[in-house]
Structures are given as structure tokens and as C-alpha cells.
């Protein structure tokens, strides 16, 4: 019965000037910017305040200089150096320059930042943010306790309510419709009913977030399956710098739940089994506040060399016991509760077991500084925009600094809103092909009718296990080859899946199967890019190529999907390279 219903189901058509896919920080910031002047729609697989921006904790960087001397130029330098010189420096300048206004925008919208005694927005230290080009840590992170992301998400949603923005919640965008190389709109699946919706729009903004679920141990939500990034890739858009995936140093051991870097910004110390403050050996100047790639690597190295803590010596310890409980309660209430709830550890008196957790994709859909999506190294796809974690502009390069992602979504989300609405004012709607929904309907029906033997959860688990084993902090040609072979095996088995729910209402069984398809694509792109970059830079550590190689690899990777298997990669993916934009900062050795 349900099968027939879908074949006959009505398709609903919608038309917008600006259509935003994703209702996290970047999507809603774009909506607010575009909202006043145009017919704006936002499509989200979740109710907006469920988006993962809400899980961000520590803060948002901006050189307000409210508590000590600071400048946007220092912030730019830190961002470039933190990204191991793979950052596009024109984009980093914009990020740092526009950060101050981005924070003021949020304050004016109502965001309850923590305050200084004078009533100004308070600021605290964070990894890799320094005074005067690395001399000492600087207080640059604007924050609201350890729920800054929650407050940003709430504030942006509140302002969308105020503006009466049109939301389509629990709609899964499953395809980007391109007509003769130009974007016409998207096709979405409505969770509640199983109905198909076709959205035409002059401008389309992708703000679909990350894809941490390619890994097993991750701080990411279950819903972060990279749908938007994979859809773009399937429609011929390349993906940039996918080998650069950030492992956040302090995930709760065994669980991956994030404990903010703010814990170290407020004075927390990492220790190994013997109690040694091991970061003194790895980053003598700024120690525990070194950038995330360096700290994560140091932690993994301590464990590998037998200095891990715990019965299996497989984690290190985050020590907050020397901080006043009142400080912990005021500035780190949520993360200390996570330690109590999930590990039964009391951070006032006991150190917290932590280990790196897959956290953030530096790479993604290539864009320029106007948030326009690129179809190759420099060709703009008119009317298509991307911002936030799904995009690669690239302000994070090979390693993102903490607090620069909440900044990124606000600066480039705002820009995506501005430029998309400006474009929509004069652009003509690209005609929506009559058969626009056919591919999505076929994909859904194939999954719905699947009667194979493989369970989705089993395939997903094997993918995540392989990615954790082969493409985590340490990587080699052999491990990456193993991962590629595993992914290809899983692709074969994916053709033989079965789902149990054949219904139309809230069919999350079906959607998990479709999401796994996206994860397989993105894992493969990630691993192919990892293998082709035969050097070590930022978050990407090749043990067989341990040094940074600026001669060969001071370039962004660009992975394209091809119809045929490529000789060089052994997959249907082609790799290209794109120059890095350098303005003021020539690559130097990266020491902290």
C-alpha cells in the first residue's frame, strides 16, 4: 500500500527569491540579512533550535579589545598561522575585520553575553589566539557562559520569529536541481507526510553544517550527515580541502561529547598518567592553549607512548581541580555537568578523562568571499551560495582556531544573505525542469522497496569504525588505502540493504538509509584527499610524510566526481589543486 501511495503522491511546488537550506547559525544569520527585502524561505531537517550550532560552547572571536589590547590584524595572523598557512588570507582578513560588527549585531539582537564590571562584553582566552603575533595568549573570545552557541542559535531564531521568516521544518533537502549548469532550486522530502516538495528560487544558500558522523567518536549530532555537501558533490560541484578534519582535543573519553576549550582558556590543564603537564613539552610558550591540531596530536602521542591514564591507559586528564568551584559554576557550568552526568566524575575534585573527538570539517563546498559557490578553482555558479561548516571559503585552512567557527557562521552567513538577496533582485528564475523531482522519487522508492540483507546500522558502524581506525589523527598510505577499500566494499553492500518501515509518516528508517549514502560519499572524498596530500599540515598528519611540504602542497585540494574510475585515485574521483591566496603572511615554521 505505501509503495503505491508514493508513486501517486502529489508534489507541492514553492517559489522564493532566496531559499536557505539549513537553519543553524549560518542559515538563520543569512535569513535575517536577506529577510527584510525579499521572499525568503528556510528549509531545515530539524526544528531550528535543534541545530548543532547550539552545541558550541566556548565563544566567538572578535578583537573588541574590551579587556586588553587587541587588533584585527593580530587575529588575522593567528587565523593564518593556526591554519598552517593554508588559509586564504583575503578571507581571513574579512573574517577578522568584520568580527567586531558581527558581535555587535548579535548583542543588538539581544544576545546575553557575559559582561565585564563596566558592563562591556567580557572576553576570555582561547587556543591559538595571541597578542602581537604569538607573544602570549590574548582575551579575544566573546562568550555567554559555556553555552555561547546555544545563545547564538536562540537569538538568531528569536529574530527570525520577529521578522516572520518562513520556515519549513523537518524537511530533508535531497537534491539540488541544476538546469544547464545553473541552479533552479531544490527537492525536499517532508518527514511528517513523506510528500515531495519542489522549491524554485533565484538564489539558493546552502548552510547545512558538517558531517562528523563519518567518524565513530565525534562531538557531532546524529543528524550531521553532510546532506548538503554530498548533494552539491553529486551535482558536479567539487569539494575543497576535505582531508582537513579537526579532532577536538577534549571529548569525554569513550563518548566524544565536547568539553569546551574554554576549560583550558579559564586555566584548565592537561595531564598524563603521571600527572605531568605534557603540553609544556609540545608548545612551551602557550602550552595548553596551543591550537587544536597540536594538542590533539600531543594527547594521542602521550597515549601511544604509554603515558595515558586510566585502566587501559587510553585517555589523558583535564584537570580543573585548582579552579575555584564558583568560577567553574559561573563560566563552565554545562561542561562540568556533562562530566558528572556521563562519566560520574566531579570536576571540582577529580580530573576529567578526555580524548580527541571528531569535531569540525575545515573543508567543504568551495566559495569565494561573497559566499558564492565555485564550480572549479575560480568559476562562480551564479545564484548559488554556501556558508558555515558546509562551506570552504577558506578561513580555517588546515586547522580551525577555536571560536572562529561561531564567527565564520556570523560573518559569512551575513554575507551569504547580503549577496544572495542582491543577486535575487535582478536575476531571472532559472526554469525548473518538469521532471525535477524524478531522481529523488526514484532514490526514495529504491530504498523504500529495498529487500536485501544488509542492515543500515551495521554498514554505518563499519564505516565509522574504519574511519576512526584509518583516517583519524594519524594517517598513512596503508591505512588510507584500507579505508578506501572498506568504503568501496560498503558501497557494494549498500546496494543490498533492507529497511523495515515502509510507511510514509515520519519514516526515519528510510532517511537513515539515505543519510548513509551521503556519509559514504563524503568519507570517500575525505580519504581520497587524505591519500593524495602526501605531506603533514595542520590537522592532517601523514606519518609516512611527517613534514610540511610547501613546494608541492601549499595548495588547496579539489575533489571532483567523475563518471569513470580514475587511474590516479582508483576511484571515480579526480583530484585537482587550487592556489592559496597569500597577502601579508609568508609561510613560516609553526611554533607556539
Amino acid at each position, binding site marked *: 500500500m505505501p509503495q503505491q501511495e508514493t508513486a501517486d503522491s502529489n508534489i507541492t511546488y514553492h517559489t522564493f527569491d532566496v531559499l536557505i537550506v539549513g537553519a543553524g547559525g549560518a542559515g538563520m544569520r543569512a535569513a535575517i540579512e536577506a529577510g527584510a527585502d525579499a521572499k525568503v524561505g528556510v528549509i531545515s531537517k*530539524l*526544528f531550528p*533550535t*535543534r*541545530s*548543532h550550532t*547550539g*552545541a558550541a560552547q566556548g565563544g566567538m572571536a572578535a578583537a573588541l579589545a574590551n579587556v586588553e589590547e587587541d587588533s584585527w590584524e593580530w587575529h588575522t595572523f593567528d587565523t593564518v598561522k593556526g591554519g598552517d598557512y593554508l588559509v586564504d588570507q583575503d578571507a581571513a582578513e574579512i573574517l577578522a575585520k568584520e568580527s567586531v560588527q558581527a*558581535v*555587535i549585531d548579535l*548583542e*543588538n*539582537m*539581544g544576545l*546575553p*553575553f*557575559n*559582561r*565585564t*564590571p563596566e*558592563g*562591556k*562584553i567580557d572576553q576570555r582566552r582561547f587556543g591559538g589566539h595571541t597578542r602581537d603575533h604569538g607573544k602570549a595568549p590574548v582575551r579575544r573570545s566573546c562568550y*555567554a*557562559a559555556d*553555552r555561547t552557541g*546555544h*545563545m547564538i542559535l*536562540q537569538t538568531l531564531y*528569536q*529574530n527570525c*520569529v*520577529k521578522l516572520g521568516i518562513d520556515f519549513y521544518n523537518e524537511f530533508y533537502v535531497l537534491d539540488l536541481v541544476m538546469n544547464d549548469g545553473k541552479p533552479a532550486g531544490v527537492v525536499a522530502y517532508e518527514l*511528517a507526510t513523506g510528500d515531495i516538495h519542489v522549491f524554485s528560487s533565484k538564489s539558493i544558500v546552502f548552510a547545512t553544517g558538517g558531517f562528523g558522523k563519518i567518524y565513530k567518536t565525534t562531538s557531532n*549530532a*546524529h*543528524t550531521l550527515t553532510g546532506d548538503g555537501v554530498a548533494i552539491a558533490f553529486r551535482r558536479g560541484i567539487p569539494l575543497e580541502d576535505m582531508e582537513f578534519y579537526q579532532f577536538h582535543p577534549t571529548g569525554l573519553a569513550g563518548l566524544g*561529547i*565536547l568539553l569546551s576549550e574554554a576549560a583550558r582558556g579559564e586555566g584548565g590543564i592537561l595531564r598524563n598518567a603521571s600527572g605531568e603537564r605534557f603540553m609544556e613539552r609540545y608548545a612551551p610558550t602557550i602550552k595548553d592553549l596551543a591550537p587544536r591540531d597540536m594538542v590533539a596530536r600531543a594527547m594521542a602521542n602521550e597515549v601511544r607512548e604509554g603515558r595515558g591514564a586510566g*585502566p*587501559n*591507559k587510553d585517555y589523558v586528564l583535564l584537570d580543573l581541580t585548582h579552579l575555584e568551584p564558583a568560577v567553574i559554576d559561573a563560566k563552565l557550568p*554545562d561542561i562540568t555537568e*556533562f562530566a558528572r*552526568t*556521563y562519566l*560520574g566524575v566531579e570536576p571540582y575534585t577529580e580530573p576529567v578523562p578526555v580524548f580527541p573527538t571528531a569535531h569540525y570539517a575545515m573543508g567543504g563546498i568551495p566559495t569565494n568571499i561573497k559566499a558564492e559557490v565555485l564550480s572549479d578553482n575560480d568559476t562562480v555558479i551564479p545564484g548559488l551560495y554556501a556558508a558555515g561548516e558546509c562551506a570552504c571559503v577558506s578561513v580555517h585552512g588546515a586547522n580551525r582556531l577555536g571560536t572562529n567557527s561561531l564567527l565564520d557562521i556570523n560573518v559569512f552567513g551575513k554575507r551569504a544573505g547580503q549577496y544572495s538577496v542582491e543577486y535575487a533582485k535582478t536575476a531571472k528564475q532559472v526554469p525548473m525542469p518538469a521532471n525535477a523531482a524524478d531522481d529523488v522519487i526514484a532514490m526514495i522508492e529504491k530504498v523504500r522497496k529495498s529487500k536485501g540483507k544488509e*542492515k*543500515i*546500522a*551495521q554498514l554505518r558502524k563499519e564505516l565509522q569504525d574504519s574511519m576512526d581506525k584509518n583516517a583519524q589523527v594519524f594517517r598513512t598510505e596503508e591505512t588510507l588505502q584500507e579505508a578506501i577499500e572498506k568504503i568501496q566494499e560498503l558501497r557494494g553492500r549498500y546496494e543490498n540493504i533492507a*529497511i*523495515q*518501515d515502509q*510507511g*510514509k*509518516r*515520519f519514516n*526515519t*528508517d528510510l532517511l537513515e538509509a539515505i543519510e548513509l549514502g551521503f556519509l559514504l560519499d563524503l568519507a570517500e572524498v575525505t580519504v581520497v584527499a587524505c591519500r593524495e596530500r602526501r605531506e603533514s599540515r595542520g590537522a592532517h598528519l601523514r606519518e609516512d610524510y611527517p613534514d610540511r611540504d610547501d613546494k608541492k602542497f601549499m595548495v588547496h585540494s579539489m575533489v571532483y566526481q567523475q563518471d569513470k574510475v580514475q587511474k590516479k585515485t582508483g576511484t571515480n574521483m579526480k583530484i585537482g589543486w587550487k592556489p592559496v591566496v597569500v597577502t601579508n603572511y609568508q609561510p613560516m615554521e609553526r611554533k607556539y
Partner: protein
Amino acid sequence: MANAAAPVIDSFTVTLIIRRFNPEVDSEPKWVDYDVEMYGTDRVLDALHKIKWEQDGSLTFRRSCAHGVCGSDAMRINGRNRLACKTLIKDLDISQPIYVEPIKGLPVEKDLIVDMNPFYQAYKDINPFLIASDKPTKERLQSPEDRARYDDTTKCILCAACTTSCPVFWTDGQYFGPAAIVNAHRFIFDSRDEGAELRIDILNDKEGVWRCRTTFNCTEACPRGIEVTKAIAEVKQAILRGRA
């Protein structure tokens, strides 16, 4: 390979009895039993996933972040509203089956999923955004004391655990409910906001704060530890005496 000194943690079988309803095929809800092998440190959400992934893919529930910040998975667990991702198996009485059902007072859509729209509408009705007539060009100032005044109610994640634990809301779906009042409180007591009067007028309605019978269910249910009943009482006070 396990270290010799590593403690062996035993798993055990837990029975979950879940209230299921799929209006596509069921005429009324039914309770269905599932046995799953779990560890004490697992969350109820892990048990639901295990059932969905290994036994019955049609079991349906909302979830996202899995650590208590997104507010997707509020449900009634052993008769109490909780987030499934914040409820550890070991903190329940595992000698008994674990009963799981949807939150009460909102229409059930399928299994543990309810129609949240009436809840969101009540939230929207209190004007949940800063109302200010000034047009600042830089940050507004706010003292740490003024900022602290409304800190507690900024923690709300709109999970609906409070509103759907409220006996008044169960019998009168028109009542704004605790979550909407919490979000009104967040603005009424923000020194930058000028919309207190408007919100107070809205909540002085017959479906507003005066319906609260001070049963404290909401405070007990809040997974963020917000003192919900206190916030409601403060809004009542603000109506009687003005914002203090």
C-alpha cells in the same frame, strides 16, 4: 586488548516497554516490549537506538545532539519527563522494565513523536525577541548584576519537558504553559528590553500565568535545571507590582 587491571564492566538485559502508535496502521496505541543488552552507563537513547537499529527499524523518535543541549528527545520515562539522552540506565530501577511513552498533552504523530506546533505557537505568542527602541551603533552596556538577573531562563532549549509535565496543560491545551512563561521571563527581566508591559499583558490573560497551580512538576522536569516555578512566580509578581 584489555589491560589486566581493567575492571570488567558487565552488560545486562533491560526490558523497555514502549508505547507505540502509527496512525497509518494502528487504531489505537499499544505497549510493546523489547529486551536489549545494555551497560549501566548507556543512555535510554542508546537503548532506543539499539532497538531501532537491531530489532525494529520502524520505532520512531526524534533525537539529534545526544547530550542534552538540542532538546529533541524529551519523553516520558517511567512516568517522568526526561531527555532520553540525559537519562542513564543505571539511574533507573533496572530490576523493573523501563516504560517509555511520548510526552503528554500534545497530539501523538507516531510512536514517541508528538505534534510540537501548539507548543511552539505559545512560545511565539509571548514575543520571544528583544524589544528595544534604541538603534545602537555599538554594544549596549549591561552590568553583570543585570545580566545575572535573567541568566537562569536563558538556558531553555524548548524541549517541552516542563510544559508537558504540567497538569494544567494536560487538561487545558490553551494554557501558555511553563516554557512560554520562562521565555517571557528571559526578556521581562532583561534590562535592555522594553517589551515587559506587552508580555505582561499577554500573560495576564485567563490562559496566562494565573493558571499555574504551583505543582513544581515543571521545575522537576527541566533537564537544564531551570527553576521554572520560581520564574513563573516572578512573572506573577511583575504583573502585580511591576518589573523589579
